[in-house]
């Protein structure tokens, strides 16, 4: 896979697109897309770490509506590059540079 534009700030850092839909964006001040850069660290970044990072740095309110325990609240779907995270190892999926993580809340009716 060719990656256009890579992370320059430090070795091992990751550039990710985080998207929110279906009402999940309400917890992020209505912002639907976040382009984030995760700093390099000893262990490779996995989704579990990402969630902790999101809770600390991006979630504006009501964390319990997004995260429960170390995973997302039941009813929130996670897509990694448009594929179901269940097929990719869920919390243990190892993040790659330029990955796109989409959170869709199915809890909001319609």
């Amino acid at each position: 896979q060719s990656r256009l534009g890579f992370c320059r700030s430090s070795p091992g850092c990751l550039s990710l697109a985080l998207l929110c839909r279906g009402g999940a964006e309400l917890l992020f001040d209505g912002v639907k897309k976040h382009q984030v850069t995760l700093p390099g660290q000893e262990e490779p970044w996995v989704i579990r770490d990402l969630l902790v990072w999101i809770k600390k740095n991006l979630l504006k309110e009501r964390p319990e509506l997004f995260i429960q325990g170390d995973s997302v609240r039941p009813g929130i779907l996670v897509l990694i590059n448009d594929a179901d995270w269940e097929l990719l190892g869920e919390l243990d999926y190892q993040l790659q540079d330029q990955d796109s993580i989409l959170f869709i809340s199915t809890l909001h009716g319609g």
Partner: protein
Amino acid sequence: AGDAFCRDCFRAFYVHKFRAVLGKNRLIFPGEKVLLAWSGGPSSSSMVWQVLEGLSQDSAKRLRFVPGVVYVDEGAACGRSREDRAKTLTDVRQILQTLGFPWPIVTLEEVFALPPSVLRCSAQDPVGTMGTYKVAVDSFLQQQRTLAAEGLRGSPSSAQGEEQPSQPCTQDSQDPVGPPPAAQTEALSQLFNSVKTLTAKEELLQTLRTHLILHVARTHGYSKVMTGDSCTRLAIKLMTCLALGRGAFLAWDTGFSDERHGDVVVVRPMREHTLKEVAFYNRLFAVPSVFTPAVDTKASEKASIHRLMEGFLLRLQAQFPSTVSTVYRTSEKLVKAPRDGCAAGPRCLLCMCSLDVDSADSATAFGAQTQDFSQTPPPTPRAKA
């Protein structure tokens, strides 16, 4: 569900389910006017999209009913400002205009203008049996062949009467001239604010919305209303209704068809699709939807019975992936009590179901003692819930 799909197989599976639910139940007749209740949310958006695609297929597989879409602006019940509501309506209109069906937009404030006749169950047309359905389809196909033979076929939809789904229907949009009078908005706001619990608010909203949509259906000549309730939502609804004391009416509240209103039947074609499937489909195939905050947006898990049930079922589902489908399968087994026609028994003014009362008082010891079993006829069988 536990099965992995590639994109194309998923699409085929999803569409097939929708068509199969409609085909299996055989309640929608060719040429019938069906009103699609669209909330802007994912499930109803997916439903509208399926109908749109289904209408444009080759004639053998084409859906044959005549749709309209209704959108209810419930902003007043949620305390939304005029500006927010107007902005949502702009997005809503943009989508509706591309559909090519008639699309009345109504505001919840219009409930105040509903005539008392909405609370009366109208005379019921006999539900078509298999034989009648087949006859109707055959005669419809015959009609189409005749038109083709006489060279009268213009657009494929000309056999459906005056409705022309292929044309943009801006004249039929029935868009309200402007925002509703402030007094009505205020009255609605007050009504909802006076309701103390979120549970009661959700139920009230549901009741008012249903009456309004049915009224729209009746005044525009629609005999069916389609709602986008998914499998997940219906499983949650089933448990919630039990908790709310509506056990006797589960079959109507969660079944494919709901005939309690008599002349207009509510059907639920999305009932075999889970919320997850809906979300994936909408994402992969770019189904447009409009997100609107509702009365329960950002409510905590314990804020209402609805929220509690939702949290309970979804959490259980995460660990036991057959939870939702098990509840759903149970709901399919519910039997409706035999209907003696609308005149039998008083009905609830709010939900229009027959009152679940046992006038013979047979459940109490006193009632049992005073009952003379040789004289009274056996009690009518109730819905098995």
